[in-house]
């Protein structure tokens, strides 16, 4: 049978083999860097920054994608804010199915739990601040009827979002609780700039792209050529189901870039978001990050792999620390409620989790949209 093989087949085979060889060589030459971290820590943000600085930047097609993602983020965030206000104040809109009503019928148990916990947590007056005034009914109705993932920002939509965001105190009050209901900080930036991002000729700039928030699913990789070195960086999703996939990418890793959000010590992880009554001291993304970091350090194949710990959102942390102490996640912290000592404690805590002294551990800090600020 082998004799039947034609010459052209042979040539093709040889070409394919050559390609494979070439790829193999390139693979061994490239340093494989794996971006890991809990959901929402900023892995993809970091990846986007790398692409902007060391890669060829983002092309028009990608920008179109980011534009749609930003539009989606705006719509989903405002919908969440409205729904939460309506749920807490038990003030359904006529004709709109309450999202917290389950797909069919009421779940009595959950409802009872919600109202009980709210009774404990909040007084009537506190609840009253989330009441959306009747004059916004039309805007709420319009916005809730939109299918979040498909929407383009029309003029009408922009007007409704603007009016709710700028004139409705209940929406602002609810936004203050964004840490519990899974609304990204950057949504405020997009709400404030809604007219610009809603224009038909809008193209996202670097800052918009970096601030866009959406869940990453699966894995994406990109090669960066920096001077003579080739880096192959892999970005992955961080939610619990996505972490099960990480093991597929562990082969031949030069270093793990582990990303931790400094501000997540009072944020509920996406996969745990319930309602305003959530207790952030029991479950927050910092505790989740610590757990994920410990699990990652424990992998047999990483015992000799270098780790670079990236502490992200240092700029937002400087603001948050004034309002919220890190004792939410680190009950043993006794230092002052200030940026430097708190961050110092967090970084030391993470480093102390490494039980392999010869493993190289590096620390880096970065701001949400300024890369590679070496903080110390």
């Amino acid at each position, binding site marked *: 049978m082998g004799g039947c093989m034609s010459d052209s087949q042979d040539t093709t085979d040889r070409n394919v083999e050559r390609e494979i060889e070439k790829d193999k060589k390139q693979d061994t030459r490239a340093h494989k860097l794996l971006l890991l971290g809990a959901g929402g820590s900023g892995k993809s943000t970091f990846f986007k920054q790398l692409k902007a600085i060391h890669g060829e930047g983002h092309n028009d097609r990608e920008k179109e994608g980011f534009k749609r993602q930003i539009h989606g983020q705006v719509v989903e965030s405002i919908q969440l804010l409205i729904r939460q206000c309506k749920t807490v104040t038990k003030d359904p809109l006529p*004709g709109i199915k309450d999202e*917290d009503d389950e797909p069919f019928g009421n779940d009595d148990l959950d409802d009872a739990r919600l109202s009980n916990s709210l009774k404990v947590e909040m007084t009537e007056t506190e609840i009253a601040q989330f009441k959306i005034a009747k004059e916004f009914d039309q805007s709420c109705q319009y916005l809730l009827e939109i299918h979040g993932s498909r929407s383009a920002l029309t003029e009408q939509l922009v007007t409704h979002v603007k009016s709710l965001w700028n004139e409705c105190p209940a929406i602002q009050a609810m936004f203050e609780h964004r840490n519990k209901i899974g609304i990204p900080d950057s949504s405020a930036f997009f709400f404030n700039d809604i007219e610009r991002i809603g224009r038909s000729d809008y193209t996202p700039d670097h800052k918009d792209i970096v601030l866009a928030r959406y869940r990453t699913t699966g894995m994406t990789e990109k090669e960066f050529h920096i001077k003579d070195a080739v880096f192959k960086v892999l970005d992955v999703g961080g939610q619990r189901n996505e972490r099960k996939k990480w093991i597929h990418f562990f082969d031949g890793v030069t270093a793990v870039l582990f990303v931790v959000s400094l501000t997540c010590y009072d944020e509920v992880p996406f996969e745990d978001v319930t309602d305003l009554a959530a207790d952030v001291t029991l479950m927050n993304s910092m505790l989740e990050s610590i757990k994920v970091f410990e699990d990652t350090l424990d992998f047999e194949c990483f015992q000799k792999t270098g780790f670079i710990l990236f502490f992200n959102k240092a700029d937002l942390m400087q603001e948050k620390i004034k309002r919220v102490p890190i004792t939410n996640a680190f009950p043993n912290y006794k230092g002052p409620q200030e940026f430097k000592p708190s961050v110092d404690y967090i970084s030391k805590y993470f480093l102390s989790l490494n039980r392999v002294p010869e493993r190289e551990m590096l620390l880096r800090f970065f701001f949400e949209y300024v890369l590679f600020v070496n903080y110390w």
Partner: protein
Amino acid sequence: LKKGKRSNIRKQLSQLFKIEPLNSAADAGHAASQQDDKKVQLSPINEDAEKQAPEIGIQTVLADWDGFQLFMQHVTTEFSMENLLAIVELTQFQQYYHFDRVKVDAEEANSSDTFVELPLDKIPHSAIVYDKNLNIQQKCVELCEKYVLAGSIHELNISYKTRKYLTDLYNEQFSSKTVSECSFAFDKVIQELCSVILDSFWRFRDTHIFQEWASKKYT
């Protein structure tokens, strides 16, 4: 290589759905190879078509059999095929119980029922949804075991609320729910997935494969 990859996807799809072909296997194989042949004759990328590309959304890609297969291939390489598999299987579930999807609420009864548009006549049938020996509650249970429960084989990236809601129903084997109520059970999951999958879609749109497909479709 292309041919290999494509047949691989068919294989994966059929393994996952335990394929129940509408046509004979030979027919399906023939159709697939015809499509592959066409693929080889593609003209170089046409600039006009590329300009149109920004207009092509995920709905258009998913509704087209070629587009669907290429996107499936893409999400497989990115390790996120569970999203698309679930969209397909849960949409088949919705469609299978199309006539049971009657809303009690008078105001909602008028709203039209919309499904994700997929080339369902070409996609293999879900072994769970089309199993004549299972009732709707049992199908819901099996779909939860496959996609929803924490630790399930194709566990999805969905919100706590949606997962908890379905997990609670799973624990009582959907026994308190009527057929009509069950037929809506996964609507929220599909809605969430349509948002999550966009992350993969925008990357897919930046690939050469997508542009080849778009130029073929729009020239």
